[in-house]
Protein backbone atom coordinates (compact mmCIF):
# COMPACT_ATOMS: atom_id res chain seq x y z
CA UNK A 1 0.00 0.00 0.00
CA UNK A 2 2.89 2.31 0.91
CA UNK A 3 4.50 1.48 -2.44
CA UNK A 4 1.31 2.30 -4.31
CA UNK A 5 1.00 5.58 -2.43
CA UNK A 6 4.61 6.46 -3.26
CA UNK A 7 4.10 5.59 -6.91
CA UNK A 8 0.96 7.72 -7.06
CA UNK A 9 2.74 10.65 -5.40
CA UNK A 10 5.66 10.40 -7.81
CA UNK A 11 3.23 10.29 -10.72
CA UNK A 12 1.49 13.47 -9.49
CA UNK A 13 4.84 15.27 -9.04
CA UNK A 14 5.89 14.14 -12.54
CA UNK A 15 2.62 15.39 -14.05
CA UNK A 16 2.90 18.73 -12.25
CA UNK A 17 6.44 19.18 -13.57
CA UNK A 18 5.31 18.19 -17.05
CA UNK A 19 2.43 20.68 -16.91
CA UNK A 20 4.78 23.44 -15.70
CA UNK A 21 7.16 22.73 -18.60
CA UNK A 22 4.26 22.68 -21.05
CA UNK A 23 3.06 26.11 -19.89
CA UNK A 24 6.58 27.52 -19.86
CA UNK A 25 7.12 26.31 -23.44
CA UNK A 26 3.89 28.03 -24.49
CA UNK A 27 5.15 31.36 -23.11
CA UNK A 28 8.65 30.73 -24.44
CA UNK A 29 7.17 30.41 -27.93
CA UNK A 30 5.61 33.91 -27.87
CA UNK A 31 8.58 35.54 -29.60
CA UNK A 32 9.27 32.64 -31.95
CA UNK A 33 5.78 32.08 -33.33
CA UNK A 34 5.12 33.60 -36.72
CA UNK A 35 1.86 35.41 -37.39
CA UNK A 36 0.77 35.04 -33.77
CA UNK A 37 -1.58 38.01 -34.09
CA UNK A 38 -4.04 36.16 -36.33
CA UNK A 39 -4.21 33.11 -34.08
CA UNK A 40 -4.53 35.41 -31.06
CA UNK A 41 -7.45 37.25 -32.65
CA UNK A 42 -9.19 33.95 -33.28
CA UNK A 43 -8.63 32.84 -29.69
CA UNK A 44 -9.95 36.16 -28.35
CA UNK A 45 -13.05 35.62 -30.48
CA UNK A 46 -13.48 32.05 -29.19
CA UNK A 47 -13.00 32.89 -25.53
CA UNK A 48 -14.58 36.33 -25.74
CA UNK A 49 -17.38 36.79 -28.23
CA UNK A 50 -18.52 33.17 -28.31
CA UNK A 51 -18.69 32.95 -24.52
CA UNK A 52 -20.47 36.29 -24.14
CA UNK A 53 -24.06 34.93 -23.96
CA UNK A 54 -23.30 32.52 -21.12
CA UNK A 55 -21.42 35.24 -19.18
CA UNK A 56 -24.31 37.69 -19.61
CA UNK A 57 -27.02 35.20 -18.61
CA UNK A 58 -25.20 33.70 -15.63
CA UNK A 59 -24.00 37.14 -14.47
CA UNK A 60 -27.51 38.58 -14.63
CA UNK A 61 -29.12 35.72 -12.72
CA UNK A 62 -26.34 35.65 -10.13
CA UNK A 63 -26.98 39.35 -9.48
CA UNK A 64 -30.75 38.80 -9.37
CA UNK A 65 -30.42 35.99 -6.79
CA UNK A 66 -27.87 37.94 -4.73
CA UNK A 67 -30.23 40.93 -4.72
CA UNK A 68 -33.18 38.82 -3.55
CA UNK A 69 -31.32 36.86 -0.88
CA UNK A 70 -29.38 39.90 0.31
CA UNK A 71 -32.46 42.06 0.55
CA UNK A 72 -34.37 39.54 2.73
CA UNK A 73 -31.41 38.97 5.05
CA UNK A 74 -30.58 42.68 5.42
CA UNK A 75 -34.27 43.53 5.84
CA UNK A 76 -34.31 41.51 9.10
CA UNK A 77 -31.84 43.98 10.56
CA UNK A 78 -33.31 47.04 8.90
CA UNK A 79 -30.18 47.45 6.75
CA UNK A 80 -31.59 47.17 3.22
CA UNK A 81 -29.54 50.22 2.34
CA UNK A 82 -26.44 48.04 2.43
CA UNK A 83 -27.71 45.82 -0.38
CA UNK A 84 -25.44 47.54 -2.92
CA UNK A 85 -22.45 46.95 -0.64
CA UNK A 86 -23.25 43.26 -0.25
CA UNK A 87 -23.89 42.59 -3.93
CA UNK A 88 -20.90 44.57 -5.19
CA UNK A 89 -18.33 43.18 -2.76
CA UNK A 90 -19.56 39.61 -3.22
CA UNK A 91 -19.46 39.91 -6.99
CA UNK A 92 -16.20 41.82 -7.32
CA UNK A 93 -14.17 39.94 -4.74
CA UNK A 94 -15.44 36.39 -5.27
CA UNK A 95 -18.34 35.41 -7.45
CA UNK A 96 -17.45 37.49 -10.50
CA UNK A 97 -14.01 36.06 -11.25
CA UNK A 98 -14.84 32.56 -9.96
CA UNK A 99 -18.14 32.03 -11.76
CA UNK A 100 -16.91 33.69 -14.95
CA UNK A 101 -13.87 31.38 -14.91
CA UNK A 102 -16.05 28.31 -14.33
CA UNK A 103 -18.33 29.32 -17.22
CA UNK A 104 -15.33 29.86 -19.48
CA UNK A 105 -13.91 26.47 -18.48
CA UNK A 106 -17.24 24.87 -19.37
CA UNK A 107 -17.39 26.50 -22.78
CA UNK A 108 -13.97 27.57 -24.06
CA UNK A 109 -11.82 25.20 -21.96
CA UNK A 110 -13.75 22.05 -22.79
CA UNK A 111 -13.86 23.00 -26.49
CA UNK A 112 -10.09 23.56 -26.46
CA UNK A 113 -9.35 20.21 -24.77
CA UNK A 114 -11.62 18.36 -27.20
CA UNK A 115 -10.21 20.17 -30.25
CA UNK A 116 -6.60 19.42 -29.34
CA UNK A 117 -7.51 15.84 -28.42
CA UNK A 118 -9.08 15.27 -31.82
CA UNK A 119 -6.13 16.95 -33.53
CA UNK A 120 -3.80 14.62 -31.66
CA UNK A 121 -5.83 11.53 -32.55
CA UNK A 122 -6.09 12.44 -36.22
CA UNK A 123 -2.34 13.09 -36.44
CA UNK A 124 -2.81 16.80 -37.13
CA UNK A 125 -0.35 17.64 -34.34
CA UNK A 126 2.14 15.10 -35.72
CA UNK A 127 1.67 16.75 -39.13
CA UNK A 128 2.63 20.11 -37.63
CA UNK A 129 5.75 18.52 -36.16
CA UNK A 130 6.77 17.06 -39.51
CA UNK A 131 6.31 20.48 -41.13
CA UNK A 132 8.64 22.00 -38.56
CA UNK A 133 5.83 24.13 -37.09
CA UNK A 134 6.25 24.77 -33.36
CA UNK A 135 3.22 22.97 -31.95
CA UNK A 136 3.20 24.87 -28.65
CA UNK A 137 3.52 28.21 -30.40
CA UNK A 138 0.84 27.44 -32.97
CA UNK A 139 -1.71 25.65 -30.80
CA UNK A 140 -1.19 26.68 -27.17
CA UNK A 141 0.47 30.11 -27.00
CA UNK A 142 -2.37 32.11 -28.61
CA UNK A 143 -4.92 30.43 -26.34
CA UNK A 144 -2.99 31.12 -23.12
CA UNK A 145 -2.12 34.72 -24.04
CA UNK A 146 -5.72 35.30 -25.04
CA UNK A 147 -6.93 33.91 -21.69
CA UNK A 148 -4.78 36.47 -19.86
CA UNK A 149 -6.59 39.23 -21.75
CA UNK A 150 -10.10 37.83 -22.03
CA UNK A 151 -10.72 36.35 -18.57
CA UNK A 152 -10.36 39.72 -16.76
CA UNK A 153 -12.65 41.36 -19.32
CA UNK A 154 -15.23 38.62 -18.97
CA UNK A 155 -15.03 38.82 -15.16
CA UNK A 156 -15.51 42.61 -15.31
CA UNK A 157 -18.50 42.15 -17.60
CA UNK A 158 -19.91 39.47 -15.31
CA UNK A 159 -19.65 41.87 -12.35
CA UNK A 160 -21.29 44.74 -14.24
CA UNK A 161 -24.20 42.61 -15.37
CA UNK A 162 -24.46 41.10 -11.88
CA UNK A 163 -24.68 44.59 -10.35
CA UNK A 164 -27.49 45.41 -12.77
CA UNK A 165 -29.19 42.14 -11.75
CA UNK A 166 -28.87 43.10 -8.08
CA UNK A 167 -30.37 46.50 -8.85
CA UNK A 168 -33.23 44.87 -10.77
CA UNK A 169 -34.28 42.59 -7.93
CA UNK A 170 -33.46 45.02 -5.08
CA UNK A 171 -34.84 48.23 -6.52
CA UNK A 172 -37.40 47.41 -9.16
CA UNK A 173 -38.87 44.25 -7.63
CA UNK A 174 -38.48 44.91 -3.91
CA UNK A 175 -38.76 48.68 -3.81
CA UNK A 176 -35.31 49.76 -2.67
CA UNK A 177 -34.35 53.18 -4.00
CA UNK A 178 -31.97 52.85 -6.96
CA UNK A 179 -30.03 55.85 -5.68
CA UNK A 180 -29.45 54.11 -2.34
CA UNK A 181 -28.37 50.91 -4.11
CA UNK A 182 -25.91 52.51 -6.54
CA UNK A 183 -24.43 54.92 -3.96
CA UNK A 184 -23.79 51.92 -1.68
CA UNK A 185 -22.05 50.21 -4.59
CA UNK A 186 -19.92 53.28 -5.20
CA UNK A 187 -18.99 53.65 -1.53
CA UNK A 188 -18.19 49.97 -1.05
CA UNK A 189 -15.81 49.40 -3.94
CA UNK A 190 -12.17 50.31 -3.66
CA UNK A 191 -9.46 50.09 -6.33
CA UNK A 192 -7.98 47.19 -4.35
CA UNK A 193 -11.20 45.18 -4.84
CA UNK A 194 -11.13 45.77 -8.57
CA UNK A 195 -7.45 44.82 -8.85
CA UNK A 196 -8.16 41.66 -6.80
CA UNK A 197 -10.97 40.76 -9.19
CA UNK A 198 -8.85 41.31 -12.30
CA UNK A 199 -5.80 39.54 -10.86
CA UNK A 200 -7.87 36.52 -9.90
CA UNK A 201 -9.45 36.38 -13.35
CA UNK A 202 -6.08 36.56 -15.10
CA UNK A 203 -4.62 33.80 -12.89
CA UNK A 204 -7.70 31.62 -13.39
CA UNK A 205 -7.43 32.17 -17.13
CA UNK A 206 -3.80 31.19 -17.24
CA UNK A 207 -4.30 28.09 -15.06
CA UNK A 208 -7.48 26.77 -16.66
CA UNK A 209 -6.68 27.33 -20.33
CA UNK A 210 -3.17 25.93 -19.98
CA UNK A 211 -4.57 22.94 -18.06
CA UNK A 212 -7.24 22.28 -20.70
CA UNK A 213 -4.63 22.63 -23.46
CA UNK A 214 -2.28 20.28 -21.59
CA UNK A 215 -4.90 17.54 -21.30
CA UNK A 216 -6.05 17.87 -24.90
CA UNK A 217 -2.49 18.01 -26.25
CA UNK A 218 -1.52 14.87 -24.33
CA UNK A 219 -4.63 12.83 -25.10
CA UNK A 220 -2.46 10.12 -26.69
CA UNK A 221 -0.69 9.53 -23.39
CA UNK A 222 -3.84 8.34 -21.63
CA UNK A 223 -3.50 4.70 -20.74
CA UNK A 224 -7.08 4.17 -19.67
CA UNK A 225 -8.65 4.92 -23.03
CA UNK A 226 -7.94 5.35 -26.73
CA UNK A 227 -9.62 7.06 -29.69
CA UNK A 228 -12.86 8.91 -29.07
CA UNK A 229 -12.97 7.71 -25.48
CA UNK A 230 -9.55 9.21 -24.86
CA UNK A 231 -10.80 12.58 -26.15
CA UNK A 232 -13.83 12.29 -23.90
CA UNK A 233 -11.68 11.29 -20.89
CA UNK A 234 -9.12 14.05 -21.41
CA UNK A 235 -11.88 16.67 -21.84
CA UNK A 236 -13.63 15.53 -18.67
CA UNK A 237 -10.34 15.53 -16.78
CA UNK A 238 -9.52 19.01 -18.08
CA UNK A 239 -12.86 20.47 -16.97
CA UNK A 240 -12.88 18.79 -13.55
CA UNK A 241 -9.28 19.69 -12.71
CA UNK A 242 -9.69 23.25 -14.00
CA UNK A 243 -12.80 23.76 -11.85
CA UNK A 244 -11.00 22.48 -8.76
CA UNK A 245 -7.95 24.61 -9.56
CA UNK A 246 -10.13 27.73 -9.83
CA UNK A 247 -11.51 27.21 -6.31
CA UNK A 248 -8.10 26.35 -4.80
CA UNK A 249 -6.40 29.30 -6.49
CA UNK A 250 -9.26 31.55 -5.34
CA UNK A 251 -8.58 30.62 -1.74
CA UNK A 252 -4.83 31.18 -2.10
CA UNK A 253 -5.17 34.56 -3.81
CA UNK A 254 -7.86 35.73 -1.37
CA UNK A 255 -5.62 34.84 1.58
CA UNK A 256 -2.89 37.05 0.08
CA UNK A 257 -5.20 40.01 -0.50
CA UNK A 258 -7.03 39.88 2.85
Amino acid at each position, binding site marked *: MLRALGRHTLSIVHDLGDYALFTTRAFGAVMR*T*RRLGRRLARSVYEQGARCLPVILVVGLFTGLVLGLQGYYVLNRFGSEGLLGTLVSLTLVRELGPVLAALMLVGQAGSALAAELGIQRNSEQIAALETMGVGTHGYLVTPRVVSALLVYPMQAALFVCVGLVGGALSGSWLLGLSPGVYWSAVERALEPRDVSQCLTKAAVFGLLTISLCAYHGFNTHRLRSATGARAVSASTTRAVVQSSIVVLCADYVITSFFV
Partner: protein
Amino acid sequence: MSARDSGILLKAEGVHKRFGDHVVLAGADLEVPRGSVVTVLGRSGTGKSVFLKCLAGILTPEAGSMRFDGAALDQGDAAARAEFRRRCGYLFQSNALFDSLTALENVVLPLEQTTDLPDKEIQERGMEALRQLDLEAHRDRHPAELSGGMQKRLALARAIVTRPELVLFDEPTAGLDPLRRNAVFTMIAKYQRQFSFTAVIVTHDVAEALVASDSVALLDGGRMRFQGAPAAFSASDDPVVKGFRDSAAALSETLHALRRGENIESDES
Protein backbone atom coordinates in the same frame (compact mmCIF):
# COMPACT_ATOMS: atom_id res chain seq x y z
CA MET B 1 33.51 8.60 -49.38
CA SER B 2 30.87 10.67 -47.55
CA ALA B 3 27.15 10.12 -48.00
CA ARG B 4 26.88 13.47 -49.82
CA ASP B 5 29.52 12.40 -52.33
CA SER B 6 27.95 9.00 -52.87
CA GLY B 7 24.56 10.51 -53.72
CA ILE B 8 22.81 8.98 -50.73
CA LEU B 9 20.31 11.53 -49.43
CA LEU B 10 19.09 9.59 -46.41
CA LYS B 11 20.71 6.69 -44.65
CA ALA B 12 19.35 4.84 -41.61
CA GLU B 13 21.36 2.19 -39.80
CA GLY B 14 20.40 -0.18 -37.00
CA VAL B 15 17.11 1.50 -36.07
CA HIS B 16 15.56 -0.10 -32.98
CA LYS B 17 12.10 0.69 -31.69
CA ARG B 18 9.95 -1.07 -29.12
CA PHE B 19 6.62 -0.37 -27.45
CA GLY B 20 6.78 -1.86 -23.97
CA ASP B 21 7.90 -5.46 -24.42
CA HIS B 22 6.91 -5.53 -28.09
CA VAL B 23 9.98 -5.10 -30.33
CA VAL B 24 8.91 -3.54 -33.63
CA LEU B 25 12.24 -2.62 -35.19
CA ALA B 26 15.36 -4.62 -34.40
CA GLY B 27 18.09 -2.93 -36.41
CA ALA B 28 16.41 -1.74 -39.59
CA ASP B 29 18.66 -0.17 -42.28
CA LEU B 30 17.74 1.82 -45.36
CA GLU B 31 19.60 3.76 -48.02
CA VAL B 32 17.77 6.35 -50.07
CA PRO B 33 19.68 7.59 -53.14
CA ARG B 34 19.07 11.22 -54.12
CA GLY B 35 16.31 11.66 -56.70
CA SER B 36 15.05 8.09 -56.42
CA VAL B 37 11.79 6.47 -55.37
CA VAL B 38 12.39 3.89 -52.63
CA THR B 39 9.54 1.66 -51.55
CA VAL B 40 9.48 -0.14 -48.22
CA LEU B 41 7.33 -3.25 -48.43
CA GLY B 42 6.18 -5.54 -45.67
CA ARG B 43 3.18 -7.30 -44.24
CA SER B 44 0.67 -5.38 -42.11
CA GLY B 45 1.96 -4.89 -38.59
CA THR B 46 5.64 -5.39 -39.41
CA GLY B 47 6.49 -1.81 -38.43
CA LYS B 48 6.72 -0.04 -41.80
CA SER B 49 4.89 3.05 -40.59
CA VAL B 50 6.83 3.00 -37.33
CA PHE B 51 10.07 2.95 -39.34
CA LEU B 52 8.89 5.89 -41.46
CA LYS B 53 7.88 7.82 -38.33
CA CYS B 54 11.32 7.16 -36.86
CA LEU B 55 12.85 8.57 -40.06
CA ALA B 56 10.62 11.65 -39.83
CA GLY B 57 11.37 12.15 -36.14
CA ILE B 58 7.74 11.68 -35.05
CA LEU B 59 8.87 8.66 -33.02
CA THR B 60 12.18 8.44 -31.21
CA PRO B 61 14.09 5.19 -31.82
CA GLU B 62 15.91 3.58 -28.88
CA ALA B 63 19.01 2.98 -30.98
CA GLY B 64 20.35 3.49 -34.46
CA SER B 65 21.78 6.31 -36.51
CA MET B 66 20.47 8.42 -39.35
CA ARG B 67 22.24 10.70 -41.79
CA PHE B 68 20.52 13.21 -44.05
CA ASP B 69 22.58 14.68 -46.89
CA GLY B 70 25.71 13.56 -45.10
CA ALA B 71 24.86 15.18 -41.73
CA ALA B 72 24.08 13.10 -38.64
CA LEU B 73 20.49 13.37 -37.41
CA ASP B 74 20.76 12.96 -33.65
CA GLN B 75 17.54 13.20 -31.67
CA GLY B 76 19.14 15.72 -29.33
CA ASP B 77 20.39 17.97 -32.12
CA ALA B 78 17.44 20.33 -32.52
CA ALA B 79 19.10 22.41 -35.24
CA ALA B 80 19.85 19.36 -37.43
CA ARG B 81 16.30 18.07 -36.89
CA ALA B 82 14.83 21.47 -37.77
CA GLU B 83 16.93 21.59 -40.95
CA PHE B 84 15.78 18.07 -41.84
CA ARG B 85 12.14 19.01 -41.31
CA ARG B 86 12.57 22.10 -43.45
CA ARG B 87 13.79 19.93 -46.32
CA CYS B 88 11.40 17.01 -45.80
CA GLY B 89 7.69 16.54 -46.47
CA TYR B 90 5.47 13.84 -45.00
CA LEU B 91 2.23 12.43 -46.35
CA PHE B 92 0.25 10.71 -43.63
CA GLN B 93 -1.81 7.59 -44.21
CA SER B 94 -4.81 9.46 -42.78
CA ASN B 95 -3.79 12.64 -44.70
CA ALA B 96 -3.86 14.54 -41.35
CA LEU B 97 -5.47 17.57 -42.95
CA PHE B 98 -6.71 20.38 -40.73
CA ASP B 99 -10.47 19.95 -40.88
CA SER B 100 -11.22 23.47 -39.66
CA LEU B 101 -9.14 25.06 -42.44
CA THR B 102 -9.98 25.39 -46.13
CA ALA B 103 -7.92 23.64 -48.82
CA LEU B 104 -5.85 26.77 -49.48
CA GLU B 105 -5.34 27.44 -45.77
CA ASN B 106 -4.14 23.84 -45.34
CA VAL B 107 -1.62 24.21 -48.14
CA VAL B 108 -0.21 27.58 -47.07
CA LEU B 109 0.03 26.65 -43.37
CA PRO B 110 3.64 25.36 -43.50
CA LEU B 111 4.71 28.45 -45.48
CA GLU B 112 2.99 30.81 -43.04
CA GLN B 113 4.48 29.16 -40.00
CA THR B 114 7.99 28.31 -41.13
CA THR B 115 8.96 31.07 -43.56
CA ASP B 116 9.12 34.86 -43.58
CA LEU B 117 7.72 35.12 -47.10
CA PRO B 118 5.28 37.97 -47.72
CA ASP B 119 1.59 37.06 -47.54
CA LYS B 120 1.12 37.67 -51.28
CA GLU B 121 3.85 35.23 -52.24
CA ILE B 122 2.56 32.63 -49.79
CA GLN B 123 -0.91 32.83 -51.33
CA GLU B 124 0.57 32.59 -54.84
CA ARG B 125 2.62 29.53 -53.95
CA GLY B 126 -0.38 27.93 -52.29
CA MET B 127 -2.52 28.54 -55.37
CA GLU B 128 0.27 27.23 -57.60
CA ALA B 129 0.42 24.00 -55.60
CA LEU B 130 -3.37 23.64 -55.79
CA ARG B 131 -3.30 24.31 -59.51
CA GLN B 132 -0.60 21.71 -60.11
CA LEU B 133 -2.71 19.11 -58.33
CA ASP B 134 -5.96 20.16 -60.06
CA LEU B 135 -7.50 21.49 -56.87
CA GLU B 136 -7.65 25.17 -57.78
CA ALA B 137 -11.45 25.17 -58.01
CA HIS B 138 -11.71 23.72 -54.49
CA ARG B 139 -9.53 26.28 -52.70
CA ASP B 140 -12.31 27.41 -50.35
CA ARG B 141 -13.63 23.96 -49.52
CA HIS B 142 -12.90 22.17 -46.28
CA PRO B 143 -11.30 18.70 -46.38
CA ALA B 144 -14.57 17.03 -45.37
CA GLU B 145 -16.17 18.42 -48.55
CA LEU B 146 -13.56 16.75 -50.79
CA SER B 147 -13.47 13.17 -52.09
CA GLY B 148 -10.85 10.69 -50.82
CA GLY B 149 -8.68 11.16 -53.90
CA MET B 150 -8.88 14.95 -53.63
CA GLN B 151 -7.91 14.80 -49.97
CA LYS B 152 -4.89 12.70 -50.90
CA ARG B 153 -3.90 15.25 -53.53
CA LEU B 154 -4.46 18.09 -51.06
CA ALA B 155 -2.20 16.35 -48.52
CA LEU B 156 0.42 15.97 -51.26
CA ALA B 157 0.07 19.66 -52.16
CA ARG B 158 0.70 20.56 -48.53
CA ALA B 159 3.67 18.19 -48.35
CA ILE B 160 5.36 19.67 -51.44
CA VAL B 161 4.46 23.35 -51.13
CA THR B 162 7.68 24.03 -49.22
CA ARG B 163 9.59 22.41 -52.12
CA PRO B 164 11.15 19.65 -50.02
CA GLU B 165 13.98 17.47 -51.25
CA LEU B 166 12.58 14.36 -49.58
CA VAL B 167 8.94 13.30 -49.25
CA LEU B 168 7.92 10.39 -47.03
CA PHE B 169 4.68 8.63 -48.00
CA ASP B 170 2.99 6.54 -45.32
CA GLU B 171 0.72 3.93 -46.95
CA PRO B 172 -0.59 6.34 -49.60
CA THR B 173 -2.85 3.66 -51.11
CA ALA B 174 -4.22 2.06 -47.95
CA GLY B 175 -7.87 1.19 -48.26
CA LEU B 176 -8.13 2.22 -51.92
CA ASP B 177 -9.46 0.12 -54.76
CA PRO B 178 -7.02 -0.98 -57.53
CA LEU B 179 -7.95 1.88 -59.86
CA ARG B 180 -7.38 4.49 -57.17
CA ARG B 181 -4.16 2.73 -56.10
CA ASN B 182 -2.86 3.07 -59.63
CA ALA B 183 -3.96 6.71 -59.70
CA VAL B 184 -2.09 7.47 -56.48
CA PHE B 185 1.12 5.77 -57.66
CA THR B 186 0.82 7.58 -60.99
CA MET B 187 0.35 10.85 -59.12
CA ILE B 188 3.44 10.22 -56.99
CA ALA B 189 5.55 9.26 -60.02
CA LYS B 190 4.30 12.28 -61.99
CA TYR B 191 4.98 14.83 -59.27
CA GLN B 192 8.23 13.17 -58.25
CA ARG B 193 9.48 13.86 -61.77
CA GLN B 194 7.88 17.30 -61.92
CA PHE B 195 9.30 18.52 -58.59
CA SER B 196 12.42 16.33 -58.55
CA PHE B 197 12.04 15.23 -54.95
CA THR B 198 13.31 11.98 -53.48
CA ALA B 199 10.52 9.72 -52.26
CA VAL B 200 10.25 6.99 -49.65
CA ILE B 201 6.97 5.10 -49.90
CA VAL B 202 5.70 2.62 -47.35
CA THR B 203 3.15 0.22 -48.78
CA HIS B 204 2.17 -3.42 -49.14
CA ASP B 205 1.15 -3.16 -52.77
CA VAL B 206 3.88 -5.24 -54.41
CA ALA B 207 2.86 -4.92 -58.05
CA GLU B 208 2.56 -1.12 -58.00
CA ALA B 209 5.76 -0.77 -55.94
CA LEU B 210 7.78 -2.80 -58.43
CA VAL B 211 6.62 -0.62 -61.31
CA ALA B 212 6.88 2.77 -59.61
CA SER B 213 10.13 2.39 -57.62
CA ASP B 214 13.83 2.65 -58.31
CA SER B 215 14.61 0.61 -55.22
CA VAL B 216 12.57 -1.82 -53.13
CA ALA B 217 13.15 -2.80 -49.50
CA LEU B 218 11.37 -5.54 -47.58
CA LEU B 219 10.88 -5.15 -43.82
CA ASP B 220 10.48 -8.44 -41.99
CA GLY B 221 11.06 -9.33 -38.35
CA GLY B 222 12.13 -5.79 -37.51
CA ARG B 223 14.96 -5.74 -40.09
CA MET B 224 15.31 -5.02 -43.76
CA ARG B 225 15.36 -8.44 -45.33
CA PHE B 226 16.13 -7.02 -48.74
CA GLN B 227 16.96 -3.77 -50.48
CA GLY B 228 17.71 -3.54 -54.17
CA ALA B 229 16.36 -2.84 -57.61
CA PRO B 230 12.84 -4.07 -58.48
CA ALA B 231 14.36 -6.54 -60.97
CA ALA B 232 16.55 -8.04 -58.22
CA PHE B 233 13.52 -8.23 -55.94
CA SER B 234 11.58 -10.10 -58.65
CA ALA B 235 14.49 -12.52 -59.15
CA SER B 236 15.38 -13.03 -55.49
CA ASP B 237 15.47 -16.60 -54.14
CA ASP B 238 15.15 -15.47 -50.53
CA PRO B 239 12.18 -17.47 -49.15
CA VAL B 240 10.67 -14.45 -47.32
CA VAL B 241 10.99 -12.23 -50.39
CA LYS B 242 9.58 -15.02 -52.52
CA GLY B 243 6.72 -15.60 -50.13
CA PHE B 244 5.82 -11.93 -50.08
CA ARG B 245 6.28 -11.44 -53.82
CA ASP B 246 4.32 -14.53 -54.75
CA SER B 247 1.56 -14.02 -52.18
CA ALA B 248 -1.07 -13.45 -54.89
CA ALA B 249 -0.09 -16.66 -56.67
CA ALA B 250 -0.07 -18.49 -53.33
CA LEU B 251 -3.58 -17.26 -52.59
CA SER B 252 -4.74 -18.52 -55.97
CA GLU B 253 -3.19 -21.93 -55.31
CA THR B 254 -4.75 -22.09 -51.84
CA LEU B 255 -8.20 -21.25 -53.18
CA HIS B 256 -7.88 -23.87 -55.92
CA ALA B 257 -6.83 -26.43 -53.30
CA LEU B 258 -9.81 -25.52 -51.10
CA ARG B 259 -12.13 -25.91 -54.09
CA ARG B 260 -10.63 -29.33 -54.69
CA GLY B 261 -11.56 -30.20 -51.10
CA GLU B 262 -8.05 -30.31 -49.69
CA ASN B 263 -7.44 -29.44 -46.03
CA ILE B 264 -5.38 -26.25 -45.82
CA GLU B 265 -3.86 -25.00 -42.55
CA SER B 266 -4.10 -21.25 -42.16
CA ASP B 267 -0.95 -19.33 -41.30
CA GLU B 268 -1.76 -16.18 -39.35
CA SER B 269 1.63 -15.66 -37.83
